[in-house]
């Protein structure tokens, strides 16, 4: 328990971090946070020192509603789950500090988020495409990808 409260205290020390009240059980998380992008490395460090792992990292294309991308980090610890979802809102086209120095897994996760959604990570050692074909110039999971060309293709000869 002391570990969890230590984590809470450390998180409270981060100025831009906002924690949502009592998350719904359906969210699968014990803590939901939003943080400014300059503080994400600090948050990562807090979680790492508390023995958490970076379980998942992905991004959401929210440009239609908020003109921004959401980068979602999910930290969890071994043993009884204590899952924290940390969200960073980035204006479209801007970069987020990389966690690759803190977590080994962040390296590939960030590359994937870059490949799929075009989010750039500052300080990443090797930010190149990971899944799509060589020479690809698109970010497939963006909401405006594949809509218009597909319709055109259908009309042309599909």
């Amino acid at each position, binding site marked *: 328990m002391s570990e969890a409260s230590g984590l809470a205290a450390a998180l409270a020390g981060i100025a831009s971090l906002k924690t949502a009240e009592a998350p719904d059980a359906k969210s699968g998380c014990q803590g939901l946070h939003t943080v400014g992008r300059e503080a994400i490395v600090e948050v990562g460090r807090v979680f790492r020192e508390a023995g958490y792992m970076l379980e998942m990292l992905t991004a959401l294309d929210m440009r239609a509603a908020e003109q921004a991308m959401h980068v979602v980090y999910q930290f969890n610890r071994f043993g009884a789950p204590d899952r924290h979802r940390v969200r960073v809102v980035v204006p479209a086209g801007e970069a987020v500090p990389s966690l690759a120095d803190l977590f080994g897994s962040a390296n590939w996760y960030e590359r994937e988020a870059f490949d799929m959604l075009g989010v750039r990570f500052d300080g990443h050692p090797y930010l190149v495409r990971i*899944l*799509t*074909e*060589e020479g690809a110039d698109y970010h*497939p999971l963006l909401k405006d990808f594949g809509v218009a*060309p*597909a319709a055109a*293709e*259908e009309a042309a000869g599909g």
Partner: protein
Amino acid sequence: MKETPPPPANATTEELLTQLGPLVHLDVLENLLNQARARSLWPLTFGLACCAIEMMAAGASRFDMDRFGSGVFRPSARQADVMILAGTISRKMGPVVKALWDQMPSPKWAIAMGGCTIDGGPFKYPGQYAIVEGADKIIPVDVYIPGCPPRPEALINGLLMLEQKIKAGKKFHV
């Protein structure tokens, strides 16, 4: 030789071969060779996705492709006769498949196993960016086996159909 018109400049290898034909015709020998080829098809050890597991199952004890002389999976393209395309060909993989095909010595055949290699299968949708919609867009395919994934019996049936095709030689039309 003089009568043969020169092949068009942009002809593919396949077209060239059909046009020129073999330089020496040895029908009896050729037939004999075809009989031998058909009964010792060595597939390339090459799995792309889900279907590869069924391909392995076809090679294992229950179905045993060895009964048809096809159980000798070769890890090197240079020793293989038949390429079983088992699984989705992604666009990143496309050039690799082509390179492997080019590395195989002639005569060579290809079996497209599963819906994905026939024309994209379940992964085909308007706007798909990741896969090659059909193996025959990259390499010539001889036998198609539908299913997702096809049962090992279907693969064996496909192999037998390929055997028929080979044995029939050039007289065979599809």
